[in-house]
């Protein structure tokens, strides 16, 4: 008998041997294809599983989690019988190969994950990373990715309420496209991906199945790009149709409402292989599928292609036999194609027939839950000590007022700190009518329902340079920033999702970064009291042997009882007192200043100060609930200087401030656990009391007003000049 092509499908020798052992025979071609996609790094988490366990083991005590890790997305109780589900996921490799479709289907995929939980999707966010802004390929990638995120989300009718865009040479051959979706549901509406009830029908609904995205999770998502890896892999990228997704969403929500489905699963990575094996495995049942009943775009497709296709906009529903007619009629009303393709059985086997022949007969758990698990070797990178020893202390610092002003302007116009308007204007932030805050505010805030003032706040943050210098601290700093960004809006942080973007897990140095980052994030979540509800791991983000900077991206969800009390990020009133909460240290390692001015990356990132973050969050929340704050803006990349620039430019209200200590450190240090807030004169004493109550350092900086940013005894910069510089950068490079 000839050798089976398992290596080409991405399976290792020992993995293939295990498949033969499970089945007691060689797998059929279709079975082999299913194992190859389900045991891919992307689907099986085989390298990350042993590390991700910490998120459960170290989880803080909480009573807000209705559904935890392991389902399509976690579900969080936000009060009043309402729940929220949210998750972030990567679509990095597809977006490099085909930026528009890669990014579009990234949004589509995460939206279906949220829908699968029984929730109405209500907003999206995106976290994007590209090479240098003037790299020859950046314009193609940014243009395509932003148009794809916007094209899909806008057409789906979901407001885009925030995210991030970062430029760094580390991502030049491997951009990162992470998309987040949030949905709302009532507690009793939670749906689970289970195939239960022998005799229940398996209904495939949504788009027809075509030859797109075949092997997307294996050959594309779980392998490293080489020199020729780009366009030649285009057929592995899925093609999105947001219009179909929109009607599928409305149709599914009505199916849920009417109680017509007993289980539901979306078809994403690994397509039908994943949806059938996961629902059967989690339901503890068997399933028999007649694959030739699947509606096809191309009739010549083989069973291998049908069962691994990643065609978008498809859902798998489990339906009681008596409800099938109602389900089909409702789908017809929405113009959604729906087909019974099989049924739930008591065999404990996933069996698939193709024109009557059994082509698959396997235990579903062996595909879905019992894939390989690896304890990959770890090694602290050889250059880590030298990198950390290369502290930024000797870099030339601006000293005079004029030099400080010039540095401030240079940073305000630098690619990572300049206005994101060119990107965010391409996203609809108004649709659905619930958006209370969106970019450029620190977090997105949406009202959950029309008849309640309850809302949620979301922020999505990461910093690959910090994580390169110290992955443990870097992950905690990403968490801390998102936690802080949610807090400045007046919301109470509740839960965490994460997207862990790393190089190849087969490289022990990358694996060390991953282990450190997950340990840091798990420890940080415990200390801040916010559990991880789910997320996604993206490995193999590298070009040749060079991995990207480790980039954990962290999303934090908060709840705000009354959205009318949300706090905006920009100065809103003339004559308010400007106050800095938190302490500033000489922390310039990994800073925007060191990078922009000196092209330097070395030393240690700012110290994560999680106890201080907790105190700051509590103080901000208390002050916001009392209605004291007219604005609050976090201090992070670029330091206090950038915070003041952004707060002033939002509504064109300047400020005069006096700095304590070394003015350079005061303006450009990136110490964590800080925020700038403003309040009326009459409220200052109460604000100081609150700060004292939470043991927070307070610095009175000055007052809002005027059309300049004035730093006493240092410089005065007109807002018009700052605005010109801040707004010019992205259009100049990307238009």
């Amino acid at each position, binding site marked *: 008998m000839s050798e089976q092509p398992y290596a080409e499908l991405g399976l290792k020798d020992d993995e293939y041997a295990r498949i033969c052992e499970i089945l007691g025979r060689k797998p059929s071609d279709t079975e082999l294809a299913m194992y190859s996609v389900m045991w891919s790094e992307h689907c099986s988490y085989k390298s990350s599983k042993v590390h991700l366990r910490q998120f459960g083991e170290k989880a803080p005590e909480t009573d807000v989690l209705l559904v935890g890790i392991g389902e399509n997305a976690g579900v969080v109780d936000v009060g009043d019988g309402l729940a929220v589900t949210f998750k972030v996921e990567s679509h990095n490799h597809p977006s490099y190969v085909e930026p528009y479709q890669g990014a579009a289907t990234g949004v589509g995929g995460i939206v279906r994950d949220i829908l699968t939980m029984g929730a109405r999707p209500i907003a999206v966010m995106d976290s994007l990373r590209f090479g240098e802004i003037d790299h020859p390929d950046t314009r193609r990638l940014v243009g395509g990715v932003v148009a794809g995120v916007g094209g899909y989300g806008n*057409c789906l009718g979901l407001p885009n309420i925030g995210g991030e865009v970062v430029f760094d040479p580390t991502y030049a051959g491997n951009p990162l496209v992470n998309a987040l979706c949030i949905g709302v549901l009532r507690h009793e509406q939670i749906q689970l991906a289970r195939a239960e009830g022998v005799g229940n029908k398996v209904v495939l609904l949504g788009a027809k199945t075509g030859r797109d995205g075949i092997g997307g999770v294996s050959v594309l998502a779980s392998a490293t790009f080489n020199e020729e890896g780009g366009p030649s892999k285009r057929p592995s990228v899925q093609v999105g149709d947001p219009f179909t997704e*929109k*009607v599928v969403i409305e149709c599914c929500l009505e199916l849920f409402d009417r109680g017509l489905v007993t289980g539901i699963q979306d078809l994403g990575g690994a397509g039908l292989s994943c949806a059938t094996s996961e629902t059967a495995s989690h339901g503890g049942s068997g399933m028999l599928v007649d694959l030739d009943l699947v509606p096809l775009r191309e009739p010549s497709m083989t069973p291998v292609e049908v069962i691994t296709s990643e065609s978008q906009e498809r859902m798998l529903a489990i339906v009681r036999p008596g409800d099938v007619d109602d389900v089909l009629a409702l789908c017809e009303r929405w113009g959604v194609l729906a087909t019974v393709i099989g049924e739930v059985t008591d065999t404990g086997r996933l069996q698939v027939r193709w024109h009557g022949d059994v082509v698959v007969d396997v235990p579903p758990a062996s595909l879905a839950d019992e894939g390989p698990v690896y304890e990959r070797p770890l090694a602290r990178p050889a250059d880590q000590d030298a990198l950390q020893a290369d502290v930024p202390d000797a870099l030339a610092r601006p000293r005079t007022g004029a030099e400080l002003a010039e540095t401030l302007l240079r940073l305000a116009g630098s690619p990572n700190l300049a206005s994101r308007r060119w990107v*965010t*204007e391409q*996203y*609809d932030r*108004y649709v659905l009518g619930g958006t209370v805050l969106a970019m450029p505010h620190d977090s997105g805030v949406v*009202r959950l329902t029309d008849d309640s003032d309850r809302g949620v706040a979301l922020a999505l943050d990461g910093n690959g340079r910090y994580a390169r210098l110290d992955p443990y601290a870097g992950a905690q700093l990403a968490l801390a920033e998102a936690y802080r960004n949610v807090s400045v809006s007046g919301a109470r942080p509740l839960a965490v999702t994460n997207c862990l973007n790393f190089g190849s897990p087969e490289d022990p140095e990358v694996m060390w970064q991953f282990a450190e980052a997950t340990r840091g994030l798990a420890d940080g979540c415990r200390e801040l009291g916010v559990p991880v509800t789910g997320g996604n791991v993206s490995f193999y983000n590298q070009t040749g042997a060079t991995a990207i900077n480790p980039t954990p991206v962290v999303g934090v969800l908060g709840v705000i009882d009354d959205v*009318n009390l949300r706090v905006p990020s920009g100065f809103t009133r003339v004559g308010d007192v400007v106050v800095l909460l938190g302490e500033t240290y000489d922390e310039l390692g990994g800073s925007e200043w060191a990078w922009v001015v000196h092209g330097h990356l070395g030393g240690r990132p700012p110290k994560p100060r999680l106890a201080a973050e907790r105190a700051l969050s509590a103080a901000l929340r208390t002050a916001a609930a009392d209605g004291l704050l007219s604005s609050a803006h976090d201090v992070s990349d670029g330091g206090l200087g950038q915070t003041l620039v952004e707060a002033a430019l939002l509504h064109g209200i300047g400020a005069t401030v006096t700095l304590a200590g070394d003015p350079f450190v005061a303006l450009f240090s990136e110490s964590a656990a800080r925020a700038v807030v403003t309040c009326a004169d009459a409220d200052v004493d109460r604000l100081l009391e609150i700060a004292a109550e939470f043991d927070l350092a307070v610095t009175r900086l000055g007052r809002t007003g005027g059309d300049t940013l004035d730093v006493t005894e240092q410089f005065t910069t007109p807002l018009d000049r700052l605005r010109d510089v801040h707004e010019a950068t992205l259009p100049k490079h990307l238009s």
Partner: protein
Amino acid sequence: MTARIGVVTFPGSLDDRDALRAARAAGAEPVPLWHGDHDLRGVDAVVLPGGFSYGDYLRAGAIASFAPVMAEVVAAARAGLPVLGICNGFQVLCESGLLPGALIRNAGLHFVCRDQRLRVESTDTAWTGEYAAGAEIVVPVKNGEGRYVADEATLDELEANGRVAFRYVGGNPNGALRDIAGIRNEAGNVVGLMPHPEHAIDPLTGPSADGLGLFVSVLKQLTAA
């Protein structure tokens, strides 16, 4: 007595719930209408909402203009029923022949979402009676194909007869000819505009409450009659 304002949902409509909310906020009774029904459910006015009906396939608004409900809308509009088309709804009105001209791809080729200043150019319509002539309002604009075009003769005729209902002020987001953001039919009962008044009914969730005036205007006119 209040008036009943119907909002049509086509497959791919997105701002239908927002339009229903705006109708309610103005004091009207919101009534959902379905694209596949030959039935206006006895409403006193109709809103064709924003979105991407039928995915904007073929041409924005083109397929929706053949929906069963549109036969009823067109007939009722010709008989004087107040009809408002917002964004995709404006595109549907142009495709249906109720309003002249067309909406094409933005001059900048990108989708644009921003808070836009508009001048109310005609208060002599069913939807703008409550505004002061020449009033400036701020409402969101968000579209990829919002550039209003028509031949010179049509544009001149619109201008001469006061049929430009809204004009962009302080920047034209999409290259619309003569900065036209919205127009009306001769009788004034049909108005179409690209910006989204239904997203500006509450400063909490929009840039202003300026957009509510369209819904209040039609309600006043209907209840006064």
